[in-house]
């Protein structure tokens, strides 16, 4: 197993893509990574709509200002409310967390395959649900664009650990 921290650090949000498709087997691996994400109360509420038809991506993009480049595929990460309602498992407040964990798995799997990605929150959920033909109990919470990066992307600066990490109590520095 490779060093997962190096993969995490190497991942970038990619918005400019080459004009070439992603193999189905790689797309399936990326969604498989999302499937294995943890979820609150193990509800497994996430369902995925994989869009890789060019016209369908362009239509989806018209309702998604955050989709900047011409991705090879877009995955709508959705929650199926019936999973929660049928089993009385948790509240809606868990949904964004479950979706975020699934999406992060997908971003990392994509990075491990040499495929660029970008999580997108800037879209109109009602319109996206309509163009994807989602049933009423399925809501899109996040889009993940996928494609081969056109050129390298720089890593934005990160806040130092000393600024964000406290040990045992707020304000106490982490010292070894």
């Amino acid at each position, binding site marked *: 197993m490779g060093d997962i921290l190096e993969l995490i650090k190497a991942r970038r949000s990619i*918005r*400019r893509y080459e004009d070439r498709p992603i193999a189905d087997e790689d797309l399936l691996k990326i969604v498989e990574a999302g499937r294995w994400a943890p979820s609150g109360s193990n509800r497994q509420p996430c369902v995925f709509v994989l869009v890789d038809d060019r016209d369908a991506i*362009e*239509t989806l*993009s*018209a*309702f*998604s*200002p*955050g989709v*900047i*480049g011409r991705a090879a595929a877009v995955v709508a990460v959705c929650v199926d409310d019936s999973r929660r309602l049928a089993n009385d498992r948790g509240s809606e407040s868990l949904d964004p967390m479950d979706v975020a964990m699934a999406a992060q798995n997908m971003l990392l799997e994509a990075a491990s395959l040499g495929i660029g990605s970008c999580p997108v929150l*800037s*879209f*109109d959920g009602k*319109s996206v649900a309509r163009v994807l033909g989602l049933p009423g109990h399925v809501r899109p919470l996040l889009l993940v664009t996928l494609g081969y990066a056109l050129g390298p992307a720089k890593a934005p600066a990160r806040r130092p650990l000393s600024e964000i990490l406290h040990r045992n109590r707020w304000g106490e520095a982490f010292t070894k």
Partner: protein
Amino acid sequence: MSNDGNHKGIAPGGAAVATLDPKLTREVYKTMTFILTAAKTLVDEPKDYGPFRLVDAVGRLAQVLVRTGYADDAVRAMAEEIEHEKYYGLKDETELLLFLDKLLEKAAENLASRPKA
């Protein structure tokens, strides 16, 4: 306005009003939809997303004109500049304003020298 398949625009009263390219009108309609969607999503988004979405919308419109063969040199140049800058520049407000000043200077020169339609 609708299209009768012969590239004729039909006004609500039924009169033909213009010759339209269905590919162009579809692409423009998608761009209009993008702008409307941005107007909604921007309500909850950081303030500096607004100028970027407007620049992106202009870039998308310019690309539509390029792809459908309706772009002249000025439109093509604007499309290329926005396409490049939206990925590699516009990191902060200062860069955005410099970029917009450059584009607007060219636009002012262009519009002043264009023959009247």
